[in-house]
């Protein structure tokens, strides 16, 4: 991966492609690449949908190798949803293919004049940017089907649906999975709107003729990968729970903990949770001839995804994730998995973030546009977004805007990004991360672990309340580092419990690049990324007052625990004290 490509969509005479060496960005991948490029090159006061914003696409440091779990693609920009820096990542095949083509980053710059839409083709011969107005307003599934006829079934596709073309703030970028379905999305923060603003409808990645990226020390790399895979397979989360039930295995547990935000964060327990559970979903999928065990990219050994069919055995969508089942399910008072699956399909097809859209539908219900629990109404509201009606445009711009338009008081967002599926009043520590992360309310920003191994900031006493600030800080640093490797974040569970598996990951990086990486190096990388993101946000106008949860979390106790969010502002302000 020694190529750094820039595509200036606004160049005089038409889009201009420049490919050069990595220069100052050498050694970076994934989130480290996207965030450091955005922080260095995007004016913090730029309009996110304007020519000054850049969309940086970067595979991870180990993508395109024989390494397991290396298929995450990062996309970064100034977010049109939050107004701050954004890194959004997805599985699928795009990272592997882009890395094998030798690109550490593809940066989309500028903005074309006129109404033409473009497709970008990246293959062994180089990069071509081609007008293709036959793709206008196509949604992702028919769009990919059409592109496959032209480019075949060996390519990987990154596309935006009608939502991205309309520049809706919840718009995502879809990446195709191994079966060429547009089911893996860079979902959060409106990255699809930025791609739409630059009039790019599709990026076709074809690595025909290219080989797996070679390691500097192939034997060390192969040995480390073997140990890494062994570690993943023997761990009960990565080796059993996730393959059997997917992420939706969390529904029952969160509900039992009283932390399952129900009917727009009014309660922590949903009476219909068992019907939505990962256990119920897996059984239904298997019974209907789908699958409860499926990998989103080649090289995945955790296989937490699946295939969801209807009662007649016809494909509906990929297995909905926990966040999606919650946002379209319990958050809206809906307990029917078929409804959730249909909504997930609509999200994937038009290209929107399932968390943002599900939370928005719940806000719409609180506004009286529909009743909580009205499955048909939820589908109708999503269809408005799909059609691009005025109501649909409001909804498609996310929870914060919908809340303002309809004068809803209870709007669960931070930095205008919708909260995910864990109530911070029940799980105070996740609230610390929601409030302080550079990304807006984000459950994965402070997600990785190994804190007890990395010992970031020293040892933490997990029983002390002030430990929550320390933990959130450590977790955010570790996550930023893992996001830079291109590894799926779910490796985190095995690394938490098995130091030898964490060492295997370090040895993979070391064997591939011919270096010796330590926990301190991982920490340093994570800190570097977070400090760059924080600095960008500060220059974009964010202050400590943006690192807070919505007021109702502090004043409305949630059943069954009757707790409010109790962290003090001064404690939140300590998170980035490093």
């Amino acid at each position: 991966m020694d190529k750094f490509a820039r595509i200036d969509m606004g160049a005089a005479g038409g889009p201009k492609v420049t490919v050069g060496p990595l220069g100052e960005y050498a050694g970076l991948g994934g989130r480290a690449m996207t965030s450091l490029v955005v922080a260095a090159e995007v004016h913090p006061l730029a309009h996110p949908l304007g020519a000054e914003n850049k969309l940086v696409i970067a595979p991870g440091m180990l993508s395109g190798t024989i390494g397991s779990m290396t298929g995450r693609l990062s996309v970064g920009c100034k977010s049109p949803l939050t107004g701050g820096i954004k890194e959004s990542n997805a599985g699928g095949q795009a990272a592997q293919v882009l890395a094998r083509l030798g690109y550490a980053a593809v940066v989309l710059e500028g903005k074309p004049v006129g109404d033409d839409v473009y497709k970008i083709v990246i293959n062994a011969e180089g990069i071509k940017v081609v007008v293709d107005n036959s793709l206008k307003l196509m949604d992702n599934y028919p769009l990919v089907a059409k592109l496959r006829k032209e480019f075949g079934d060996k390519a990987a596709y990154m596309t935006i649906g009608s939502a991205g073309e309309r520049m809706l703030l919840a718009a995502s970028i879809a990446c195709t999975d191994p079966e060429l379905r547009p089911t893996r999305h860079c979902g959060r923060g409106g990255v699809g709107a930025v791609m739409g603003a630059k009039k790019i409808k599709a990026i076709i990645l074809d690595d025909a003729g290219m080989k797996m990226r070679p390691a500097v020390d192939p034997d060390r790399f192969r040995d480390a990968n073997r140990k890494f895979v062994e570690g993943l397979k023997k761990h009960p989360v990565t080796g059993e729970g996730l393959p059997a039930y997917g992420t939706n295995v969390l529904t029952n547990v969160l509900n039992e903990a009283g932390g399952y935000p129900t009917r727009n964060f009014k309660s922590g327990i949903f009476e219909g949770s068992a019907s939505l559970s990962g256990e119920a979903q897996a059984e239904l999928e298997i019974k209907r001839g789908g699958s409860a065990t499926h990998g989103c990219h080649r090289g995945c050994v955790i296989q937490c995804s699946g295939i969801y069919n209807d009662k007649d055995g016809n494909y509906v969508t990929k297995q909905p994730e926990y966040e999606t089942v919650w946002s379209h399910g319990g958050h809206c008072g809906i307990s029917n998995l078929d409804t959730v699956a249909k909504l997930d399909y609509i999200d994937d097809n038009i290209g929107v973030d399932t968390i943002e859209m599900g939370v928005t539908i719940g806000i719409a219900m609180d506004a009286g546009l529909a009743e909580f629990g009205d499955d048909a109404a939820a589908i109708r509201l999503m269809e408005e977004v799909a059609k691009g009606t005025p109501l649909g445009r409001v909804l498609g711009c996310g929870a914060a805007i919908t809340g303002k338009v309809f004068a809803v008081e209870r709007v669960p967002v931070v930095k205008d990004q919708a909260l995910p599926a864990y109530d911070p009043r029940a799980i105070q520590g996740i609230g610390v991360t929601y409030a302080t992360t550079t990304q807006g309310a984000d459950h994965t920003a402070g997600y990785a672990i190994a804190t007890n191994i990395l010992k970031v900031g020293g040892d933490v006493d997990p029983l002390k309340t002030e430990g929550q600030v320390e933990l959130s800080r450590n977790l955010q640093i570790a996550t930023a580092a893992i996001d830079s490797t291109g590894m799926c974040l779910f490796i985190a569970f095995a690394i938490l419990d098995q130091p030898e598996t964490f060492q295997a990951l370090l040895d993979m990086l070391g064997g591939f690049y011919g270096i010796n990486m330590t926990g301190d190096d991982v920490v340093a990388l994570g800190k570097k990324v977070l400090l760059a993101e924080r600095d960008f946000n500060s220059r974009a106008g964010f202050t400590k007052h943006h690192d807070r949860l919505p007021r109702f979390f502090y004043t409305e106790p949630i059943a069954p625990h009757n707790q409010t969010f109790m962290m003090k502002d001064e404690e939140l302000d300590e998170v980035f004290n490093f």
Partner: protein
Amino acid sequence: MDHEAGEPDVAEQAPLRCRNVALRIMSDQLSIFFPLLQRGVRVQAEVGKPLGQFLSDQLGIPKEYVTGRITTIFMDNRPVDDLERSRIHEGSRVTLSAAMPGLVGATMRRSGFYAALRQGISHAEQGAELPSGQGTLTLKLFNLLLPELAPLILARGILLEQDELDALLNEFDAASRLGVASSYLCDREECGGTLVTVTVRDLPATPG
């Protein structure tokens, strides 16, 4: 599905309030019980005892399985860390789960490193004297523990109301549905419901 014969000479016993129903099924029918076990079933228990004792001694779950496999436990919606200090009481709701993904999954783990993140909702024994003796509590099983512990729990017996039992029996297809032969056998006045014991003919009761 077979049924056991009822107890003889019912007329000679004192008026009783619960029945026993014994079912014998094959392992491929076990999943019929999973929705019920996820929602929670009442089981008989000696209350006032430590939760760890309930799991190992009363339910008969091997100690190493409790330690190694049941990594997430809730009691009355609160994550439990200390199995010896936490005590079951009449009407407790006990939920058993395997290891969970995600930061929040790790947060809920018994004595986990991230327990601080769930400040305020963790189970804390108040130290009050609890009544002891025979009682009932609600037990829920989640995810990997469902197929692994269901045979054991069902063999020990679960208490169902009549409508729950009817709904359960309706899940079996007509060819295997049985006519229930009731046997009256109860020496407590308060247990209520029907004690249903299930033997899975082709699986051991105790998890491996």
